């Protein structure tokens, strides 16, 4: 059941946009630039530019945290996953996001925020050594540009199909807008635009979901149609996931729980700096801890807004994604937009999609410039200059990063599903990061040298498993998603084994230098008085975190019985 849903959308998907829709789009682009220029006056230091001066409120960083992930590749890709695999797409949200976000907020954030590191690699510098730091910084910078390129490429294809703009036009226009508002306004500008994009994309997806359900005869009509065509398992989260059983996802419950739910998801949400950066810009420790917890709630319910359009598309176009149709799975949401939305809401939907593409790209650019400036340039190339120099350099490298991602946009073409492509990358870059983090944070004995070896071993093992064992057919895994899950587990185990092995034969870090970096210790100066308002019961991290977990489990129930 391996499908070849090529990235390009069908040619016949041109939307019937008119002047009203373009007016809505134009207003948005003006506001985006306006935010950038209005944020300019708040940028005085490099800390303002890269981390918003660590001063934003939790609801802003929380919504930015979820929006940074809610790029258009995610939206189109997850709707595609819904159309292809059915209800199983919920795994990416309820087991593949919520537990990791809660773990980040409740367990890891005190070490991240409390140690005052400005980036994820900088934590590795403190906990391990320069080689681990340089390797993770370089890998991250590389991945960030690559993923920004994926976003830009995907944007150009969607815009060409929907609006008829030539690809180079939308690449240049979107690239320049992102370049302008981040170079001028820094992270505050990126985060504010993400918060705005969050609401616009909801305003686009909610009407689409409502009309889609109506079109397919409500949930009952939809599930009757799909059950008849694809069987009961299509509307069931766990059906057919026993080990050795066949299911469209190509993964069993063990690889779903361990590969997706534990390794991939924890790797992405807890060590991907494009996400963690939003929490590090919060105004105090309490707000930083609440950032991923606040994000967990919208994240949990957004799945309905992408899964239902995906299912509706599968119901009303039975041949979608097969050779009998020129529509691919990625067309699910654009198809419904064309079929159902009148001008006006259509303009909102186009705006939301473009906003999501730009925000997805901007999140990567704004984390790339931080890591490149403070972790690579300021540590290893030009050291000990004054802060203004690094602020100027950060602006320059933002421009360079955007131009580089335009160049890498074309790499995205060779994978069959946008999400599959992103997840393949994450399994290579984030998984070993997560191993090194979790062992480094919880095991004092992990030596300074073990970090870099764990990173190298995990990345190599995941790549070998994917490109050699899976791609060359040495081991049989039914689908690309399944292969990603398995590669992630392999990378995790290899990284862990090598770390433990290296630690046993090399010297541990002196206990005095581990304060605030390892579980059971606290940073010496971490005595900032708790904010009075943070004592309100609904702002208690433990309540928010466990509430999210309980709610995610409850969400599973209707699709698991």
């Amino acid at each position, binding site marked *: 059941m391996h499908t070849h849903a090529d990235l390009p959308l069908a040619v016949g998907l041109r939307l019937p946009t008119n002047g*009203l829709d373009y007016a809505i789009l134009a207003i948005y682009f003006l506001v985006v630039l306006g935010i950038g220029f209005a944020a300019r006056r708040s940028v005085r230091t490099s800390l303002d530019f890269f981390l918003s001066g660590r*001063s934003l409120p939790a609801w802003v960083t929380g919504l930015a945290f979820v929006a940074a992930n809610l790029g258009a590749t995610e939206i189109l890709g997850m709707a595609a996953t819904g159309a292809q695999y059915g209800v199983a797409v919920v795994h990416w949200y309820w087991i593949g996001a919520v537990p990791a976000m809660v773990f980040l907020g409740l367990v890891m954030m005190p070490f991240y925020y409390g140690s005052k590191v400005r980036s994820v690699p900088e934590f590795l510098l403190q906990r391990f050594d320069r080689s681990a730091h340089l390797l993770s910084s370089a890998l991250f910078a590389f991945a960030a540009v690559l993923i920004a390129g994926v976003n830009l490429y995907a944007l150009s294809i969607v815009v060409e199909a929907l609006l008829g703009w030539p690809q180079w036009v939308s690449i240049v226009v979107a690239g320049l807008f992102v370049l302008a508002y981040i170079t001028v306004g820094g992270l*505050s500008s990126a985060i504010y635009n993400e918060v705005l994009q969050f609401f616009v994309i909801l305003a686009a997806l909610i009407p689409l979901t409502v*009309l889609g359900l109506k*079109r397919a005869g409500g949930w009952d009509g939809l599930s009757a149609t799909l059950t008849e065509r694809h069987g009961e398992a299509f509307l069931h989260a766990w059906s057919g996931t026993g080990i050795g059983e066949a299911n469209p996802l190509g993964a069993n419950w063990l690889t779903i729980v361990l590969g997706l739910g534990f390794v991939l998801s924890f790797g992405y949400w807890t060590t991907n700096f494009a996400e963690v950066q939003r929490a590090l810009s919060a105004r105090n420790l309490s707000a930083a801890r609440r950032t991923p917890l606040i994000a967990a709630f919208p994240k949990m319910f957004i799945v309905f807004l992408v899964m239902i359009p995906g299912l509706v598309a599968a119901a009303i176009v039975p041949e979608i994604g097969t050779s009998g149709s020129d529509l691919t799975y990625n067309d699910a949401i654009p198809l419904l937009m064309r079929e159902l*939305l009148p001008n*006006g809401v259509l303009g909102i939907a186009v705006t939301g999609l473009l906003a999501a593409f730009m925000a997805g790209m901007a999140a990567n650019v704004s984390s790339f410039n931080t890591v490149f400036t403070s972790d690579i340039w300021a540590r290893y190339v030009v*050291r000990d200059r004054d802060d203004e120099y690094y602020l100027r350099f950060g602006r320059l490298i933002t421009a360079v990063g955007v131009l580089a991602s335009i160049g890498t946009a074309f790499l995205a073409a060779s994978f069959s599903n946008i999400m599959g492509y992103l997840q393949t990358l994450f399994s290579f870059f984030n998984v070993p990061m997560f191993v090194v983090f979790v062992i480094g944070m919880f095991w004092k004995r992990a030596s300074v040298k073990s970090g870099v070896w764990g990173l190298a071993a995990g990345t190599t093992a995941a790549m070998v498993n994917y490109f050699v064992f899976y791609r060359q057919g040495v081991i049989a895994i039914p689908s690309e998603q399944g292969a990603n899950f398995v590669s992630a587990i392999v990378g995790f185990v290899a990284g862990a084994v090598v770390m433990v092995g290296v630690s046993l034969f090399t010297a541990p870090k002196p206990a005095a230098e581990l304060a605030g970096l390892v579980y059971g210790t606290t940073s010496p*100066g971490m005595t900032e008085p708790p904010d009075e308002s943070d004592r309100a019961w609904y702002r208690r991290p433990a309540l928010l975190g466990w509430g999210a977990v309980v709610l995610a489990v409850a969400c599973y129930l209707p699709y698991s019985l």
Partner: protein
Amino acid sequence: MSAPHSEPHSAPGSTPPPAELREEVTRLEAKSATAARLFDIRRIIGGLFTVYGVIVTVAGLLASDAELRKAQGININLWTGLAMLALGLLFLLWMRLRPAQPPAAPPETD
């Protein structure tokens, strides 16, 4: 990055002590202008959604039969427009009721 006085961490291959990083970030936090000078995003969300709400609501009021048929008989522009308008006004109201506090004062809002 670090203070100009020479520190043992300058030796290649070693790691700067955590204390030095904390001091540097604390120093930058003290000079930061974001808390004092960054505008309130609620104003932008409120403004944009109010404008969008009005535009889309008007489009809903002028909806043709063909548009209604396309949207499954629901006047989706009207409902979406009203909802966006309500959201925009709520953000403006929230900002009016609980304006952002200057950073030094004991804050009671988010």
